[in-house]
């Protein structure tokens, strides 16, 4: 029983990561009609905001290791720790959540620059052109990150207070053996908050209402004298913020490296297609569904019956769903039907 519950938790956790990236992808596709292959790179850029912020917080005095004379071997003493003692250490400890503060404005800028500088020139071009240009952009971004930070993953620790595991079993009266890492639970809650915020924004604000109307019929909204294009630019920036902050929060789970965006991108596209192109609810539902399915397929009991199923299950489910529901789980008629 414990192992099933823990796989459900794990699936939700994985699904949350897929859903957050897929949400941004769908938002951009639904509003701008752009298939954005650079979205994974935005997720990765968010993660590197956390890396950069920690680097800034840990700017250090270098204390030379005198036993080594052949090269510069030293131990770092961060200025923050020297100047502020325990307070400085605590600030460094909270580097990941604090880096959200710099990630949000940075991702708004990235999103805005990307949309105005490149994407808008491809609105009226074929999807193949959009895919090529955004994929190319993703490669450029990741190579820039590799040149600046190297190819090795760079570990980012969660704050000490949430470094261990929570006794989830005790919370629900299921005994002590059901434990789950605190940070993964935090990530799950964070994803929930982000998804709720995006839906609320679109559902309950006038701004969101206009965006939704624009998603349905851009021309009519334009005829009403509303500059829908400007709103869509802002939606692109919002999608970048969602992906970027997801990247920041994911760093303690997966040490970031230049390729992490590409690793997630392929799966997220599967999620978008399974959920239904342009459907926000579909993207979120498919994200969680595929996360849970993947998690269960990795159980030893399942793998002993069908070896290797864990590596193909997502694609297998996608095939089955698309065969039975060609538009995906919640796909709308007319979206990418041709």
């Amino acid at each position, binding site marked *: 029983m*414990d*192992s099933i519950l*823990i*796989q459900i938790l*794990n*699936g939700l*956790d*994985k699904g949350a*990561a897929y859903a957050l990236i897929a949400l941004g992808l769908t938002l951009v596709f639904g509003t701008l009609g752009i298939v954005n292959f650079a979205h994974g790179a935005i997720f990765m850029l968010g993660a590197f905001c956390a890396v950069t912020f920690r680097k800034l917080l840990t700017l250090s005095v270098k204390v030379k*290791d005198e*036993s*080594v004379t*052949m*090269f*510069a*071997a*030293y*131990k*770092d003493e961060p200025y923050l720790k020297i100047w502020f003692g325990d307070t400085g250490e605590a600030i460094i400890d909270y580097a990941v959540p604090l880096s959200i503060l710099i990630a949000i404005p940075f991702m708004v800028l990235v999103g805005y620059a990307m949309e105005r500088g490149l994407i808008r020139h491809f609105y009226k071009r074929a999807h193949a052109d959009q895919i090529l240009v955004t994929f190319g952009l993703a490669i450029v971004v990741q190579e820039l990150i*590799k040149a600046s930070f*190297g*190819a*090795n*993953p*760079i*570990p980012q*620790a*969660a704050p000490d207070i949430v*470094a*261990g*595991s929570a006794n989830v079993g005790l919370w629900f009266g299921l005994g002590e*053996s059901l*434990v*789950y*890492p605190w*940070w*993964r639970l935090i990530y799950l809650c964070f994803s929930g908050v982000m998804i709720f915020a995006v839906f609320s924004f679109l559902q309950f604000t006038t701004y969101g209402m206009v965006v939704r109307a624009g998603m349905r019929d851009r021309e009519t909204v334009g005829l009403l004298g509303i500059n829908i294009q400007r709103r869509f630019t802002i939606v692109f920036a919002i999608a970048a913020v969602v992906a970027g902050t997801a990247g920041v929060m994911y760093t*303690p*789970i*997966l*040490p970031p*490296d230049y*390729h*992490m965006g590409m*690793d*997630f991108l392929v799966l997220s596209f599967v999620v978008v297609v399974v959920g239904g192109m342009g459907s926000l609810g579909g993207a979120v539902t498919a994200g969680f569904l595929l996360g849970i399915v*993947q*998690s269960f397929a*990795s*159980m*030893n009991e399942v*793998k002993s019956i069908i070896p*290797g199923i*864990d*590596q193909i299950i997502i694609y297998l489910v996608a095939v089955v769903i698309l065969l039975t529901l060609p538009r995906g789980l919640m796909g709308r008629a007319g979206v990418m039907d041709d």
Partner: protein
Amino acid sequence: MSDFSKLNRRQALKLGAAGAATIGATPLFFSRNAWAETFANDPGNKASVTLGFNVPQTGAYSDEGADELRAYKLAVKHLNGEGDGGMMNTFKPSSLKGNGILGKKVTFTTGDTQTKSDAARASAKRMIEKDGALMITGGSSSGVAVAVQGMCQEAGIIFMAGLTHSNDTTGKDKRRYGFRHFFNAYMSGAALGPVLEKEIGNDRRAYHLTADYTWGWTQEQSMRAFTEGSDNVDGMDGIKGIGWENVAHVKTPVGAGDFSQYITPVLNSGADVLVLNHYGKDMINSLTQAIQFGLRDKQVNGKNFEIVVPLFSRLMAQGAGENIKGILGSTNWNWSLKDAGSQAFVKAFGAEYGFPPSMAAHTCYCQTLLYANACEMAGTFYPPEVIKALEGFSFDGMGNGATEYRAADHQCFKDVLVVRGNQNPSSQFDLLEVVQTTPRSQVEYDPKIFGGELGPYKV
């Protein structure tokens, strides 16, 4: 027209001697350059020779590849008599003179393996066919090494493997033209087994997570044989083990990223040891996530839960950060070794680049010098003769003590280091502490156990 009847005795003797000398020398004259006509990329009368350095310059292992390339450049410099000579001062017996190889200046060309077999083969082929590379070396993956080694055998070009740890490289996939200086999975198991028994005991239940490719399979096989005994392990015989029990051994896809779905079943499996048969980014991710799930702080069966990483490198330790602390593993070489050869190499590399070399850099540097030395010993670049010079060659002064290139499988045998993630590093490079240097005799094995055929000298 000559009149032979007018030849006097002295003239007849002279003519006879000249004729005899001509006839005697004729076979030598015609066969003198016979090798030149039969081997690929013979430098002939050129003033230089070209070596092909095939390393990952893009992709997840590009940092390791960059370090390999640094070592190769340093080796070329030293072979050409530039710099302080590095290990050329400590390597013995050495035929190297510091004037290139056989008097020809060493130049090089590079290729990008991308850590993909197809790409690695293509870049090696390009270096052989277009750039005239006389020898190919490098790589950071066993899959790549096996693929390139096979291609080099067909092309008649010697392949001096870089970082490859699978038993298969010098086991079932060994080739006459392939040589490995790096240690292998069997040696890691043989070195780690006794240390694990001493450090964490023999009443243990182990759970293996294994990268699903040639290296991972042989690493798991070796670790299980040396901890559980070889009775239940396919392809291994006569190994007693240390009394451990196997709970599960699970294959994980290479580059999985998030390993949580493979780690969660470990939590309540009853295992008290997790063996991560992962390397590079996979190892960094799986170790980070295992620690996140609280495995290092867990108590199972009344014992502290332990994590073992059979193959460590300093570059990986850097990626894993704090998580590596206290974790046991093995490594081919570490810059902190105090022997004269290691110190000479670290000094030369440190002076050139400002930081210490990785184990990948070390093995690549050694391979270049060993190839050059074999050419000098053979007195030719003709591969069959160079191969014969390398086979059974015993040497010292390159770190890891007395070493031998075993003729039967082209595997180097030398001491193996068991290391632990340093709890209190004194610098950014002081990440691994040497727990034990396992003597070469303890990690040697019968070459027949892994099967395979070296193949012919002449191709």
